[in-house]
């Protein structure tokens, strides 16, 4: 047999059976940016923009009037602000994981979704960044946190996990952006080459950085991509580990636990995959990308969700075990009373919402029928997103609201600003995301082509490739031009 790129012996099947030609890939991806936007796009974009306006208004109100416009209070000094921060940061993780880690592990099915997920990462981190920047009482002095030489005799406190956060998140954002952009260059060049007007050509041409698809370009590109993937990979672990240090290094029980770094990373991947799934399902149907994002992709992602659901479930159980094993009354109280006990704790429902959404509901994926049912996976992905939001809420609020001295206990209630700002971040995310799918190739054209059977040197019938090309492993470069 010909050297098919599909290893049938290992049970692999072709990823994109319905793609019959290389041009088909280019066409179906590029036409999204070239044709007028479909109605569905507008129907999503206009409300998103409205929500973005709400966000801007809320931020204006928050900065003018003060943090007190949120519901935060004395025992619960962090509430929805940091919950949303961690949630959005977690969402971002899928992007890096899919693009970097799966790349290094040569998981070819990632190619259909990586661009998408990376974009999501960037927008999610943008949404996340709003919260730490604005949750401070005097956001105009946020720059005190940067190690800038100044005349005020001030220097940040590097012992503070918040400082680590700043470095972790900003590094993460920078690397993700670079990684995403680097991956985009060949595709931007494709768009440039297909442009029918000068303006379009100029803009895409500018961002394509003079890509010509030459052998040397490909060589540099592949090397850069690999290096960035290698840099990004530890970030998948480090960012959320460091975010978890905000909690893990503190003295508050429910926070003060060593399981947090892996637990947070698993949760982040979990929630990230869920949101990728939600968005992918919508986009796939709006832009009719059934050939490129197949049921097989979706099923694989669902397996990931099932796996990470077990990881977070394990972490939840482990917290209880450690609370029991440590013999620490305060810690036991946090878990048994604050979280579990429906008769005592004001927030018991949030804990149970988290367990049901994150651990119980994903169990449907044990059945293949469920894994491959579009409505089921849509619903489950939404539940997982809700559950993961509750996870952060549970960690932050239920640990704080009843800590050491019962005299200081209190209850947090969100205000309308809390709620509107959270909705507003969806506006920012969705607006950015919709602009992205409208103007930038949302599927990595070049990369998808690389995993097509007829991109393989030994693919028999489709194209008669010359001996020279067969001997040179850089024929992808030629394919890039479509």
């Amino acid at each position, binding site marked *: 047999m010909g050297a098919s790129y599909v290893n049938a012996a290992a049970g692999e099947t072709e990823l994109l059976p319905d793609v019959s030609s290389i041009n088909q890939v280019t066409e179906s991806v590029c036409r999204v940016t070239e044709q007028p936007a479909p109605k569905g796009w507008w129907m999503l974009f206009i409300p998103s923009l409205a929500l973005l306006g709400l966000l801007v208004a809320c931020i204006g109100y928050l900065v003018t009037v003060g943090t007190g416009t949120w519901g935060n209070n004395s025992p619960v000094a962090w509430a929805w602000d940091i919950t949303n921060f961690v949630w959005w940061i977690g969402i971002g993780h899928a992007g890096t994981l899919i693009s970097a880690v799966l790349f290094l592990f040569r998981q070819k099915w990632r190619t259909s979704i990586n661009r998408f997920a990376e974009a999501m990462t960037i927008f999610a981190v943008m949404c996340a960044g709003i919260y730490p920047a604005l949750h401070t*009482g*005097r956001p105009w002095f946020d720059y005190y946190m940067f190690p800038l030489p100044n005349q005020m005799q001030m220097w*940040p406190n590097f012992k503070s996990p918040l400082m680590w956060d700043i470095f972790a998140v900003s590094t993460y954002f920078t690397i993700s952006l670079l990684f995403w952009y680097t991956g985009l260059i060949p595709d931007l060049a494709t768009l440039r080459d297909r442009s029918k007007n000068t303006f379009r050509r100029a803009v895409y041409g500018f961002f394509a950085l003079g890509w010509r698809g030459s052998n040397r370009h490909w060589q540099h590109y592949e090397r850069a991509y690999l290096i960035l993937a290698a840099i990004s990979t530890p970030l998948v672990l480090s960012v959320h580990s460091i975010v978890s240090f905000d909690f893990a290094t503190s*003295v508050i029980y429910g926070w003060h636990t060593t399981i947090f770094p892996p637990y947070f990373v698993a949760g982040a991947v979990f929630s990230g995959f869920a949101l990728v799934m939600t968005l992918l399902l919508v986009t796939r149907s709006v832009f009719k990308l059934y050939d490129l994002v197949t049921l097989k992709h979706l099923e694989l992602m669902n397996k990931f969700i099932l796996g990470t659901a077990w990881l977070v479930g394990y972490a939840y159980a482990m917290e209880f075990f450690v609370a029991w094993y440590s013999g620490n*009354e305060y810690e036991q109280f946090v878990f048994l009373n604050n979280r579990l006990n429906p008769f005592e704790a004001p927030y018991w429902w949030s804990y149970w919402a988290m367990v049901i959404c994150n651990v119980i509901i994903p169990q449907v994926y044990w059945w293949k029928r469920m894994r491959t049912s579009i409505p089921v996976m849509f619903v489950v992905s939404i539940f997982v997103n809700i559950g993961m939001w509750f996870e952060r809420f549970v960690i932050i609020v239920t640990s704080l609201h009843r800590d*050491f*001295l*019962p*005299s200081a*206990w209190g209850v947090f209630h969100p205000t309308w600003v809390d709620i509107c700002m959270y909705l507003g971040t969806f506006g920012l995310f969705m607006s950015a995301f919709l602009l992205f799918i409208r103007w930038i190739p949302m599927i990595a054209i070049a990369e998808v082509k690389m995993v097509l059977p007829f991109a393989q040197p030994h693919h028999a019938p489709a194209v008669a490739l010359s001996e020279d090309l067969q001997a040179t492993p850089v024929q992808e470069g030629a394919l890039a031009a479509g």
Partner: protein
Amino acid sequence: MSRRKPSVLPTSPVEGPKVWRSLDEKRLSAAERADEAATEQAVLLDPADLTKGSSAAAATLSRRNFLFTGGATGAAVSLGACIRRPEAYFAPYAQAPEQLTPGTPLRFATVLDRNGDVFPVEVETHGARPTKVEGNAAHPWSLGATNLYAQGAVLDLYDPDRLQAVRSSKGGAGEKDAGDKGAGAADKARELLKTWGNEARRTQGRGLGIMLPPVTSPTVVSLIKRLKSSLPQALVVRFAALHDESVLEGTKVAFGTRRRPVYSLDEARVLVSFGADLVGDEWAGVRSTKGIAQSRRLGSAKDTPPRIYVVESDFSLTGAYADHRLARTDTSALSLLLGLAGALERHLDVDLGLPKVPQLPALDDEAKAWVPLLAEDLAAHKGRTLVATGRRLPAWAHALSARINEALGNIGKVVSYLEATGIEALEEVATTATVGKSDIEAVQRWVFLDVDPLASSAAGPSLAQALDASGVEALALSFHVTATSEKCDWAVPLSHDFEAWGDALLPDGAYAVRQPLIEPLWPSLSLVEGLAALAGETEHPRNIVWAETQRLLQAPLGGDALWKKLLARGIVHIPMVKPAAAVDAAAVTQSVAAGLTKIAGREANGSLDAVFVADPRMISAQSANNPWLLELPHPMTKVSWCNPVSVGVADAQRLGLTDGDIVKVTRGAVSVEAAVAVCPGVAAGTVALAMGWGLAPQGRYGAGKGFNFTPLRESDLSWCARVVLEPTGRRKKLARTQTQNTMEGRPIAIDATLDEYRKTPNFPAWRAVEFSTGPLWKEIEYKGHRWGMVIDLNACTGCNTCTVACQAENNIPVVGEKEIARGRDMSWIRIDRYFVGDDENQPGVAVQPVGCQHCEIAPCENVCPVNATVHSPEGTNDMAYNRCIGTRYCMNNCPYKVRRFNYLDWHGRDAGNDGVPETKKMQFNPDVTVRMRGVMEKCSYCIQRVEAGKKRAKLDKRPLADGDITPACAQACPAEAIVFGDLNDPKSRVARQASVDRRYKLLAELGTNPRTSYLGRIRHVNPALVKSKSQEAAHTSRGLITPQALKRKQEGRA
């Protein structure tokens, strides 16, 4: 907005420098140019034209003008956007006043008097602004400590809603005019009073009525006597909603004269209180607290604290302080008192002259068990005990308790019955309860001096009716706009005590002079001035007081030198006639018998006893609009901004009431709607109604806050009403500063019985075990000072004075009811109150003041990203407000939750209102930063005082001595429970306290190693009353921690 304006408008085009843009323009005549410029100005200056887009404006709005306008607007907007402070100028003294060094505060001694509850104070003034009240250390009734109303007094002074103008409704239209605020307004009011006095003198005073509070001022007494001699027919009435008439009447029965029991409790061994709130709002509470606390501050397990028994219906501070407390109705308390008297007769073998058949309701078993034990305990400590009766009990009970104290040999030792001073001692002055309706109706001209009977007296309605009668004129000298001042034809502002001359005399001869510390902020008259004007005396009030002082001292003691000395010290002792101490036993017997028949006649018809109690926050009516005191949580219910009806747990369950339900409290035809707070420990069958709220109808802080229960009172002498509670179905969100009532079995406010203490002197250390994993960073060595604080939980009464003192000292904002309900209170030191024991109806109480613990290994310091909270070289945990950006991470990571965040611009909104009033700004302590929004703050150990103390010592060229530095909380504490000082100085009080065996560190197991430590509370229980283990558990805070767990901890420690 900035006062800087962009100077863009051409000033005078005619005389201005010759500027031209083109040759044509240059050729234009000056007149034409002026016209052009005028048009330009018109366009610029009349915004209406611009907004309307009038054709004229549009026509002249050239490109240049557009740019001109746009530029100016842009500049103005950007300048305005930069929040610039308005410019203000310091005016240096042309002639420096004597004594005053700019930047250095001065202290003046003066005295406060609220309805006869005298408080001698020292007031700190900065640049002639009183800013902080301290107790007068030279005065034995304060010894430097203060109470709540004294702490709040300085804010009363600056109350922006004080009555500020002499207002009258004589201008017709029925409404009061805006009033005269001018400089001569006070003189006009004085003239009016003088005219009234003169006119009254023609009729010997017939038709003149004067109502005033029962102050102790000898000057006022003399003025009243002088008035009475010239106006013998005038009606003089004293009025106070919270009074001690029953005490005075009771002592009159026992001793023949109206007397005050004055307690010296330092040496007392057994105290039995029947509803007497000795350490709380009872008369001279600070003095009593000082006494009891002294013997409760145990140096070691060898010392024995006094044993305190309390029988009461409401839950008072003394009840919380007690070793045994019995929650029973006031009637049961009387039964118990009679029972005790009977038992004592047998024990002491004396005849107390009890009526043979007690007709009071029989006691239940638990209460019955108390009788012999109390008698035994009292008899065993003869001469060092006290039986105290509260102001709610009838006169005969006070007479009986005097008789019992005599039999126990306590008189002259623990209690002295001294002649009452002031207005309340005057027989010729009527009370609102004794004055007849016809007397009231005979009055044609009323003068209300610092009283608000219409809102706070049971006689209010009939008085209001009398005022409505035609031809009746009335004048009110009033601190606020009150119900009374509104009804009167004239409302004249009353001077605050810090603006006035006056004096106060206590029964033991301690005489204090009041001197003004500041010119009256608004035209006003003081009580002395008002009375003097009526009496036709034109002397300066200072001279009137001075003359009185000289009369009291019985010699014209050489002029100014003594006077100045007296003013500087604030107190002088006047020899008093020592009254005979024997109790008239026959009179007591008669009075008891008469009293019993009265009580037995009362019916109980399934309704509840509503007892009228003092609210510790609203002792002074002048504080009705005082946001510090309004926001202060009630010591037991922890409700701020409100005085809900306190209902016990059993009654609440029976009536189906929960916290915050609004109920209709009905007595006969009268009803008041009020919210309910369920308070464990209020006696079954009793609801407690706190008085003093809802009296500032126009105060921006106090208006609409709290409930005025006065209408439920039958007469001003009645302390109890039979009421029915009906739920209305509506609810009110109570703003509580503490919502969790129990310690959850955690070792927080640690206590033990005396026996346990003797067995294990370091008992708290076994519960709050210090774990140490070793330091993460190199430990700091403190070579100089090492500040620390020790708080003795056995001394602390939980009175909250430290909280207000701290607020006054440190410019702590108030946040308003809504924000308290949200959980955003700002107090740097709070009193945690926990109920202990299993019985919800009769719990014990543990109180614990918690401020910043100044941890050695502070969790807050590590997590601040901007180093805004750091350790000082002297070991305190300091806040650099300028550096703080408000991440609130420190607040999260503080296990004690003592950090306070300015979530909003609290000063800007000032308890929910707009901005800090100018007058309130005068109270700010200039030594402490006023924090803006977005900044974290917390207890600093009063770092400003620490630095000032160090500076003083340096200037005096001497080493800093122990006691040179006292934080506001420690200084105000009447129990001296808080001790601050240098831990590096082994001789310092704090170092000695820190080595007391029962010392522990709060949450020691976390390894934060706090600087503030606590001394565990010792409950001196009567072993006979604590037979079972569960009963013992009811008396100490132990709970969830099992003996096994304790053992594990101990083993782990070994």
